[in-house]
């Protein structure tokens, strides 16, 4: 179909079409729903008075726009993610011993956790193979760091980026670790171009440069991966579980206070393997499916889910659907670094649905929860107390 002259739509509204133009118009109009909608929009626009389209009456969106610009790096990341193939999400319980690695190679050059100063705990930090720690405050441009011939750059909005320098081959495998504080998320690009979006209170250990074999990283907490296609396996180790992909996107959640592993696949293919206490099972996931690995019970199951519920955090939202209040508040408490107390344990089983902006602040979020339920939330510094409305 040829492009229709916009002026024909105007003439249609004025009732001035010739017979042949009318035919052309009808053909265009019926071609798609969008066209019909546009024609209606055009009619509405034409009916507007001069005052309604004056410059003074344009709503001022400067503040909203600047907020959007500030959140931009996150958004750009998600759009990129969703454009591609698979999104997997994997919540998991982690024992205390997670950072005592069974893999010696992984262990050799990582600094001892104890070396991290107490004050660093509340800040997002990078620990390099030689034991240096760098505070990664958001919004501050920082100097370039070099580790084993790999350049590490910190960008204002984009986060960390690892760049392999040509001609220089690392002598040994060097590992870095990124540790985000509560209420802070961070984005980094690994040397193979894989992008990782690390949620708050999480740790990721990764080699500064991947060798010739498979690519392997270790996670505690939650992260969203956009794995670049290199033809080599990409494996995320989480406690006694592995998620294996060959160039795709997925999200892994592994906070120690969650008691099950949930691997959610949006599209593409991912293999989940468990190897612990004599259990050796693996599962290929289909898009829209969620594998649930209950560590304590030793049970591996699979169900269909709405994947958006498990990936919304990347976009700056908490999303819940018919979830227990205890689960909802645990997620919120993790982000805001608070403790939750219940007047009555029955309250924990109340069910909630909704979408909350995690940057709105705790007060706003607790207000919203109060509005849609019969519970009352009292916010008191770092503690919230949940009770029934009177």
């Amino acid at each position, binding site marked *: 179909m040829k*492009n229709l002259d916009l002026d024909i739509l105007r003439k249609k509204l004025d009732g001035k079409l010739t017979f042949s133009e009318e035919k052309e118009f009808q053909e265009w109009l019926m071609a798609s729903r969008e066209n019909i909608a546009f024609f209606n*929009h055009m009619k509405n*626009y034409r009916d507007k008075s*001069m005052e309604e389209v004056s*410059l003074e009456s344009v709503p001022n969106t400067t503040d909203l726009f600047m907020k959007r610009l500030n959140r*931009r790096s996150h958004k750009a990341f998600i759009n990129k993610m969703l454009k591609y193939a698979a999104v997997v999400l994997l919540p998991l319980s982690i024992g205390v011993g997670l950072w005592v690695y069974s893999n010696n190679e992984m262990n050799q050059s990582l600094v001892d956790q104890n070396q991290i100063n107490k004050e660093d705990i509340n800040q997002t930090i990078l620990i390099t193979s030689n034991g240096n720690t760098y505070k990664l405050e958001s919004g501050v441009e920082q100097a370039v760091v070099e580790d084993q011939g790999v350049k590490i750059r910190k960008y204002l909005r984009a986060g960390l980026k690892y760049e392999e320098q040509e001609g220089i081959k690392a002598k040994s495998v060097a590992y870095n670790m990124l540790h985000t504080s509560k209420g802070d998320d961070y984005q980094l690009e690994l040397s193979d171009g894989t992008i990782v979006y690390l949620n708050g209170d999480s740790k990721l250990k990764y080699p500064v440069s991947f060798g010739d074999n498979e690519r392997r990283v270790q996670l505690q907490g939650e992260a969203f991966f956009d794995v670049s296609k290199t033809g080599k396996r990409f494996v995320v180790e989480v406690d006694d579980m592995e998620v294996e992909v060959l160039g795709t996107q997925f999200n892994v959640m592994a906070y120690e206070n969650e008691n099950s592993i949930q691997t959610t696949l949006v599209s593409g293919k991912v293999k989940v393997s468990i190897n612990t206490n004599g259990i050796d099972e693996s599962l290929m996931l289909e898009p829209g499916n969620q594998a649930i690995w209950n560590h304590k019970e030793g049970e591996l199951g699979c169900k269909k889910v709405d994947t958006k519920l498990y990936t919304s955090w990347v976009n700056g939202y908490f999303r819940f659907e018919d979830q227990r209040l205890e689960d909802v508040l645990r997620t919120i408490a993790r982000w805001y670094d608070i403790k939750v107390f219940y007047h009555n344990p029955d309250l924990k089983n109340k069910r909630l649905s909704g979408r909350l902006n995690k940057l709105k602040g705790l007060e706003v979020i607790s207000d919203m929860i109060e509005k849609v339920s019969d519970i009352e939330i009292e916010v008191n510094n770092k503690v919230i107390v949940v009770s029934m409305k009177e």
Partner: protein
Amino acid sequence: MITEERLLNQRIAERDKNAFRLLFDTYHAQLFRFAECYVCSPDIAEDIVQEVFIKLWENPKIKISRSLRSYLFFMVKNACIDHLRSMKLEDKKKLKLAEAQIVSESISVNIDSEVSLKIKHAIDELPAQCKEVYCLSVYSGLKHAEIAEEMGISVNTVKVHVFRAKKILKERLYHLKELLMLFTHLITKNKK
């Protein structure tokens, strides 16, 4: 005005968020009305305008030869044309472009020299005071309050004149045979 914009341009190249905010604040209303005239939807218009600003912010190396203002209009115009194309629509006689310039009070040779010239001829035929007010607003970029002060009339009178000018120009655009002929003439000339 020109030096001011050069300074702004430089500050934006240096990723100064306050300068960027000022730029958005200054041109948002005009760009929004311009886009809205094309896409006929406030939501899509707002989206288009914001996307253009985001692109500018994320690519500070974009070489802007004329001015930030004409760059912004140029980008918004292109985004609108793309949007129309996705619905198999085309502004063949550039009538929509003329209307968008009139509605957004942003008649500029930098947006489209031929169309702007045609509008300029139509402006020449406006009633005297109406024409003077409209020219000050469109060509000198004065705010309504500034025009009121300069001409010693009330802000409301300025507004009335601007509305009237826009209304007359819009009607002329679509009803004056002569103007239409000229537009058509331009198109056929371009095709050759």
